[in-house]
C-alpha cells in the first residue's frame, strides 16, 4: 500500500472535529492534522456539510495540503437522537393590589419594628391619633423638613411607629431624630400605598435580617390576621426572608393570592407507564423515568404547564429534525429542579421571590439519517472519496483507548452539548446509551436561576471561574485567594463579580450588580452536578450489566464538557467514591478529551486496510 491521507470527521451537536492521518503499509497511522469548528445545522443532516468542509479545510491547512489531496474522508454514523430543552415555573407569587411594599433598599434608616395605620405626611398637622401610625413621606418633602416635622409631631404626642419614605433619605432622616424609628426608603410605588391600612415596617441592624415580617405568624399578630389570611400572607413573608428591611400593609379585601399554577401530570411510557405530578419535582419525575426505562414516549397533560412544556419540546424537536410534531417520540427525559428569581407581581416596590421551576431536557429518535447523502454530497463537492466510517460510540471508544494509561475493559462517557453518551465493550459488541441533558441544559439552568435572561452570559458563567473585584487592584478569587492587578479595574467593574478569562489572561467580564460571588459559584456547580454528574452516573448504570457501577474499574471522559475547568474533577471525585478510576481522556496523548471519534474513525479504517 502506498501512503494514503485519510481524514476522520465527527459531527457533534455543537462542534465538528476532524483528524488527518497518513496511513502506510506495516506502520501505525501517523496523525498529522487536527481541527475543530462549530457544527452547521442539526447533527446528521445535509446542513452539516458547511462545518465539515471548514473542519477539513483547517486540518488540511495544518498539514500544508489542499483538502482535495485527501484520499478518503470518513464520517461518523451519528447517533440518531436530537436533544431539546424546556423550562416552566410551577409556582407563582401574585400580590393583590399593593400589599407588599417592602424590598431591600441599600440604605434604610433607623432600626426596629413598627406597626400602625398608614397616614400621609400632611396628616401630622392635625391632632395626634390615639393609635400608633406609620407616616408616608413623599419625595416633595426634603429630608431636613421631614425630620423636623416628625420630631415636632413626636413631641406633640403623635405615636409614630415607623416611616415610609419615597426618596433615598432614610439614613438622613434617622440621623436627625432623637428616637430610633424603622424607616424604609426608595419606595418606587409610593403612590400606591394603601393609606389608612394597618402596616408593619421593620428595619434590622446592619448585618442582620428582618425577623418579624418574614414570619407568617408574627405578621398574623402584627396585622390581626385570621388563620386563612395568615395562610395567604405566607408567600409575602417568604419573599422577605433574608432582607434587611421591608413593609407589609394589610388590605381590606384580603391580602394575597399565593397561586400555584396548574402544574399538570407527566406520563412516562416505556417498560411500563407511570404518571407523575410535575409539581412533585425532578426527583419524582426521574424516579418515574427510571421505573419505565427504556422509554417509548413522554406525554404532558393538555392544558397544564406539563403539557405546555412537552408541547414546546415537541415543537422544537420537530423544527430541528424536520419531522412532524405528532410523530416525535421522547426517548429520554432529564428533569432538574431550579429556583428562579421572579419579580413579585403586584408588589409596590421591586420585590423578587424565588419560584420553583423544572428544567427538562429530552432526547428524541429521528428517522432522518441522510449520512449516505451527506457523504455523496461531500464527495462530489470535494472530488474525493467519502463514506460512513463507523458507529459513533464504537469510534469514540477506539479513540479513547489512545489515551495514555487507558486499556480495556473501560467505559467512555462522552459529555457534549445536548446529550451524555456512554459506551463499553460488552458481550458480542458494544453496550451504549444516549441520555438527554448536557452542557446546554446547564447553561439554561444557570440563566434561569441567576435571572440573567442572557444565554450567552450564562454560557460564559458556566465556562469561567468567577472572582469579586474587592478593590481597585485586587480580585478575590473563588478559593479565597487574592490576585493583584497591574492596572486599576475600570470603574464599571468595581465591586462586581467578574468572570476570569478562560486562558488565565487579564480580560474580565462583569456580571450584573445583584449577583454575589457565592451565588454564582454555587449555581454553576449545582447545575453541573445535577445535569452532568447525575447523567454520567445514570449513563454508566444504563450500560452496566446489573445496574452496579462498580463493575467499571475505569471510566474515560471525553467530549466538550470534559474540557471544562471543574466538571472532570467533580466526576473524578464522585466516581472515586465508588472505587472507579476516572478522568478526562487525552486522545493520542495530545488532544485532551477532544477528537476521540475522528481518531477512532481513522484507526478503524487503518485496521480494515491491514486486514485486507
Amino acid at each position, binding site marked *: 500500500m502506498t501512503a494514503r491521507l485519510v481524514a476522520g470527521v465527527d459531527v457533534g451537536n455543537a462542534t465538528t472535529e476532524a483528524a488527518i492521518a497518513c496511513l502506510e503499509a506495516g506502520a501505525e497511522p501517523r496523525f498529522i492534522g487536527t481541527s475543530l469548528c462549530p457544527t452547521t445545522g442539526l447533527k446528521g443532516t445535509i446542513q452539516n456539510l458547511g462545518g465539515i468542509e471548514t473542519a477539513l479545510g483547517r486540518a488540511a491547512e495544518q498539514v500544508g495540503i489542499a483538502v482535495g489531496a485527501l484520499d478518503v474522508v470518513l464520517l461518523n454514523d451519528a447517533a440518531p437522537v436530537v436533544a431539546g430543552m424546556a423550562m416552566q415555573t410551577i409556582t407563582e407569587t401574585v400580590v393583590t393590589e399593593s400589599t407588599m411594599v417592602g424590598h431591600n433598599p*441599600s*440604605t434604610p434608616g433607623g432600626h426596629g419594628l413598627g406597626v400602625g395605620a398608614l397616614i400621609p405626611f400632611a396628616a401630622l398637622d392635625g391632632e395626634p391619633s390615639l393609635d400608633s401610625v406609620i407616616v408616608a413621606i413623599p419625595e416633595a418633602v426634603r*429630608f431636613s423638613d421631614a425630620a423636623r416635622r416628625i420630631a415636632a409631631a413626636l413631641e406633640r404626642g403623635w405615636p409614630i411607629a415607623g416611616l415610609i419614605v419615597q426618596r*433615598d*433619605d*432614610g*439614613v*438622613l432622616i434617622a*440621623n436627625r431624630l432623637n428616637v430610633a424609628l424603622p424607616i424604609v426608603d426608595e419606595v418606587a410605588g409610593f403612590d400606591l400605598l394603601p393609606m389608612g391600612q394597618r402596616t408593619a415596617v421593620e428595619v434590622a441592624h*446592619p448585618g442582620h435580617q428582618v425577623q418579624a415580617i418574614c414570619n407568617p405568624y408574627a405578621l398574623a399578630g402584627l396585622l390581626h390576621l385570621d388563620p386563612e389570611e395568615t395562610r395567604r400572607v405566607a408567600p409575602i413573608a417568604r419573599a422577605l426572608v433574608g432582607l434587611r428591611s421591608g413593609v407589609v400593609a394589610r388590605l381590606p379585601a384580603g391580602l394575597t393570592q399565593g397561586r400555584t399554577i396548574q402544574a399538570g401530570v407527566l406520563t412516562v411510557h416505556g417498560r411500563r407507564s407511570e404518571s407523575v405530578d410535575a409539581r412533585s419535582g425532578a426527583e419524582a419525575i426521574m424516579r418515574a423515568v427510571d421505573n419505565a426505562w427504556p422509554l417509548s414516549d413522554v406525554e404532558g397533560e393538555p392544558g397544564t404547564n406539563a403539557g405546555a412544556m412537552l408541547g414546546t419540546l415537541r415543537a422544537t424537536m420537530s423544527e430541528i429534525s424536520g419531522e412532524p410534531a405528532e410523530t416525535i417520540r421522547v426517548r429520554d427525559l432529564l428533569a432538574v429542579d431550579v429556583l428562579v428569581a421572579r419579580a413579585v407581581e403586584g408588589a409596590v416596590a421591586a420585590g423578587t421571590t424565588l419560584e420553583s421551576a423544572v428544567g427538562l431536557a429530552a432526547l428524541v429518535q429521528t428517522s432522518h439519517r441522510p449520512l449516505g447523502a451527506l457523504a455523496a454530497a461531500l464527495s462530489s463537492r470535494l472530488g474525493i472519496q467519502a463514506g460512513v466510517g463507523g458507529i459513533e460510540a464504537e469510534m469514540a471508544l477506539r479513540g479513547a483507548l489512545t489515551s495514555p494509561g487507558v486499556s480495556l475493559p473501560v467505559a467512555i462517557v462522552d459529555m457534549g452539548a445536548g446529550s451524555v453518551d456512554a459506551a463499553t465493550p460488552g458481550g458480542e459488541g458494544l453496550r451504549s446509551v444516549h441520555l438527554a441533558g448536557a452542557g446546554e441544559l446547564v447553561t439554561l439552568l444557570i440563566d434561569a436561576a441567576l435571572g440573567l435572561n442572557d444565554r450567552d452570559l450564562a454560557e460564559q458563567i458556566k465556562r469561567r471561574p468567577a472572582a469579586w473585584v*474587592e*478593590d*481597585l*487592584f485586587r480580585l478575590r478569587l473563588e478559593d479565597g485567594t487574592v490576585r493583584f492587578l497591574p492596572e*486599576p479595574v*475600570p*470603574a*464599571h467593574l*468595581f*465591586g*462586581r463579580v467578574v468572570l476570569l478569562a478562560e486562558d488565565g489572561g487579564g480580560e474580565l467580564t462583569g456580571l450584573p*450588580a445583584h449577583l454575589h460571588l457565592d451565588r454564582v459559584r454555587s449555581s454553576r456547580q449545582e447545575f453541573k452536578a445535577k445535569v452532568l454528574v447525575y447523567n454520567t452516573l445514570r449513563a454508566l448504570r444504563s450500560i452496566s450489566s446489573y445496574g452496579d457501577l462498580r463493575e467499571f474499574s475505569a471510566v474515560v471522559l471525553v467530549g466538550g464538557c470534559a474540557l471544562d475547568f471543574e466538571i472532570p474533577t467533580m466526576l473524578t471525585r464522585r466516581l472515586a467514591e465508588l472505587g472507579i478510576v476516572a478522568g478526562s481522556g487525552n486522545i493520542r496523548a495530545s488532544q485532551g478529551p477532544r477528537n476521540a471519534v475522528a481518531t477512532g474513525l481513522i484507526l478503524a479504517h487503518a485496521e480494515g486496510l491491514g486486514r485486507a
Partner: protein
Amino acid sequence: MNEDAPYVAIIAAEACPPGLIDEVLWGLEEDGVPARLLPSRGGSTGELAGLAAAASPLELGIALGAAGECAIGHAAVQRRCLLESEGPLTPAQARRAGCIAARLAKRLTLPLEDGTWKTP
C-alpha cells in the same frame, strides 16, 4: 476627634456653590460613610481629588470646582482621578457623587448608569 478615624476627604473651590457641597456630604451620610471638608485651595478638580484622596484615611477624595464640576480620586491611583464629571453637577448628581464615593469606600458596585461620569 480620633485622627485615625476613616473619612472621605472633600476639597471644594472657593466659588463652588455651597448647596452642591451639602449634597455631596448628604450622599456620603446616607450611605453611612464619614466625610470631612478640607480647606479650599487652587488647582484643577483632578489635582484636588488626588490631594483629597492622599489626605483621606480611606484613600478617597472628592473635588468640586468653581462651576460645580467634580472629580473623585483614589490615593492608589496617582496618575489620574478615578472618575470625572462630564460637566457641572446638578444637586441630584452631587448627591450621587457622594453615594459613589461612599460605595467605593464600602467596595460596592457603583451607580454610573446616568452618563454623568467619565474615566479620564
